[in-house]
């Protein structure tokens, strides 16, 4: 003889369910949980404001709000606040002061129990990149980790090296880069030689890609070496321009380097400060 469980009855918002539970939210706070926000950022001078509402056991809605300042060096910054007992109705975090571009701040909201290093995560509520106009919201869309999205588009002017020194740029700790394009000017000295600049990508030690200028760069001139995704190889000895390709979509880990390596570089040759465009994500 078959037996059937009684059909589940749907609770109606604002009314008690068949089990006597009033459930305006999937999260009930006992008063021992805390809200922890963790951010990673590459931009100074930003402040986030986190706001939310709790429906208390006395049926009163209690709004709360607190500020949070991200670090600008891609290390994590956390702020934790105690939450009162009741139903967590909603949370929102957005950038409320400072100037930034999309992808410059990633935030994670969690419920934790305990203090400091002893805190234990009860629930990861939401994570995503945050801007002044696109807040991190709970309840909301699916969580986004810090290596997703289009990334933070950054135009960087690197180090002007000394004479006779190659350029060397390093992916910062906590970052992951995709190199989109790089402009590298070489001012050659009067010493006669055929220089051939190459651009190499490595993980900090082992080289995994190199691309070089498509011709000889002669003395007493300023040569523009352009490296870019989707660029073909070309060389214009009159216009002093060399174009060379970069692999599409190649990623560099933290500590990885973008370096020049120049055949026949002379002691008096001078590279300009490299200018490059990268997409950046946070590898945390």
């Amino acid at each position, binding site marked *: 003889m078959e037996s059937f469980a009684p059909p589940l009855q749907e609770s109606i918002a604002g009314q008690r369910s068949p089990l006597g539970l009033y459930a305006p939210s999937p999260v009930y706070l006992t008063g021992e949980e805390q809200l922890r926000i963790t951010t990673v950022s*590459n*931009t*100074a*001078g930003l402040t986030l404001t986190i706001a939310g509402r709790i429906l208390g056991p006395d049926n009163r809605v209690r709004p709360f709000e607190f500020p949070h300042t991200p670090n*600008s*060096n*891609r*290390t994590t910054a956390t702020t934790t606040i105690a939450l009162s007992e009741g139903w967590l109705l909603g949370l929102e975090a957005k950038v409320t002061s*400072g*100037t*930034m*571009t999309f992808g*410059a701040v990633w935030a994670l909201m969690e419920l934790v129990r305990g203090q400091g290093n002893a805190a234990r995560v009860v629930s990861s509520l939401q994570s995503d990149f945050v801007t002044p106009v696109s807040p991190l919201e709970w309840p909301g869309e699916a969580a986004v980790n810090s290596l997703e999205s289009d990334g933070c588009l*950054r*135009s*960087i*002017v*690197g*180090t*002007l*090296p*000394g004479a*006779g*020194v*190659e*350029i*060397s*740029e*390093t992916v*910062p*700790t*906590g970052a992951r880069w995709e190199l989109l394009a790089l*402009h590298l*000017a*070489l*001012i050659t000295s009067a*010493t*006669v*030689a055929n220089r051939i600049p190459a651009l190499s990508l490595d993980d900090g030690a082992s080289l995994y890609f190199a691309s070089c200028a498509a011709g000889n760069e002669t003395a007493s001139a*300023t040569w*523009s070496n352009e490296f870019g995704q989707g660029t073909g190889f070309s060389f214009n000895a009159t216009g002093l321009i060399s174009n060379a390709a970069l692999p599409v979509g190649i990623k560099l880990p*933290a*500590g990885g*380097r973008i*370096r020049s390596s120049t055949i*026949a*570089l*002379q*002691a*008096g*040759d*001078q*590279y*300009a*400060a490299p*200018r490059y465009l990268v997409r950046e994500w946070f590898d945390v």
Partner: protein
Amino acid sequence: MAVGDYVQCNACGGTYQPILADGSEYYHACPSQRAIDDGPDPADVTGKTRKVKLVAIDNRRNENIAGVDDKGKAIIKSEGLGVTVITDVSKLPPTLTTGG
């Protein structure tokens, strides 16, 4: 440091802005070697070419973050020989400001 300030690395001689124009921080790391003149190239009878010797750059600076201390302050990987703040921006090489 503020946006627009320049410093020069005392190990490699590189010049850079610790805070870029968009407000993001820039972390310098020295290259490993430099080319120095090693006299005329004896193989060149015209005397127009020079020999070059690559020498290692000692006490290299690496400003990338190795970790944070007890107070949450970032610790850089290597101080090297430190940096010199460039107070007179008129002395900046034109290749830095124009891109060459």
